[in-house]
């Protein structure tokens, strides 16, 4: 495994760990892709599917926006 792949695997592990906080009875609707519970989302990430990649993208975007200060934004149409 090269450095890039190792980094991707670490990010996937981080996202899986964070998604583990989802209660088991919650469904996540991802548009036309369908709806998924926690177990299914984690499987998607581990299997590197499009939905799994989307979940990683959502998590990274969340962390990025928190860092940028979205929490303090109000009336800001740039978001």
């Amino acid at each position, binding site marked *: 495994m090269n450095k890039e792949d190792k980094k991707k695997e670490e990010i996937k592990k981080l996202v899986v760990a*964070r998604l583990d*906080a*989802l*209660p088991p*009875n*919650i*469904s*996540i*609707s*991802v*548009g*036309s*892709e369908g*709806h998924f519970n926690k177990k299914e989302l984690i499987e998607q990430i581990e299997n590197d599917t499009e939905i799994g990649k*989307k979940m990683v993208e*959502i*998590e990274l*975007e*969340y962390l990025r*926006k*928190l860092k940028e200060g*979205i*929490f303090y*934004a*109000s*009336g*800001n*149409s740039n*978001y």
Partner: protein
Amino acid sequence: MPQAIVITRPFYDETTSYLHRWNLDVVKQAKAKSNSVADLKYKRANRKELESIVKKLKPEVIILNGHGSSDTILGQGDEVLIKAGKNEHILKNSNVFSLSCSSAKVLGPASIKAGAKSYIGYKEDFVFAYPKDYATRAEQDPLAKLFLEPTTKLATALVNGNPPEDCHEIGINAFLKNLQQVLLSNSTEEYVARFLVWDLTNQVYLHS
């Protein structure tokens, strides 16, 4: 105040059932504001009927709920209602809000090019969370409310005749308020914050 309003509300799976039910208040508000409201629900959310009613009413506001993709919005049973390059011209002269996945990526710009006054939508999948036990009473679901209250406020502001740019802001601010609510109040719903951020960052306002 809009002279005519058209709303599509398909209902055939869990996602569309949520959008359908949460838009009932938008329909009620639209009917209170205009005598010319077409609520295309269930089987009426089909392309033939939409094209016909838009041609007849020439609506100032069109609200589209349902599944979609970057260039398409779907109606009942996944029937294509509007597709970029095919019939986006039917949105000409209208202010459009599309609560469907990714349509602001291709269909939104194509609609503006075809003469739509404005287009508010999402560049990526619209994501929301809901507990399984609320599936049959979606309108009472406090978790889905975090996502669908902002979109309902946006749509209501549009049918009330507010400028589309303001409606976009109303939606964004409602998302931000709910985000702060789940992060600040020791809420057990903190896990949905990532999805709220996703939706609000992907909501866009396009105009000519």
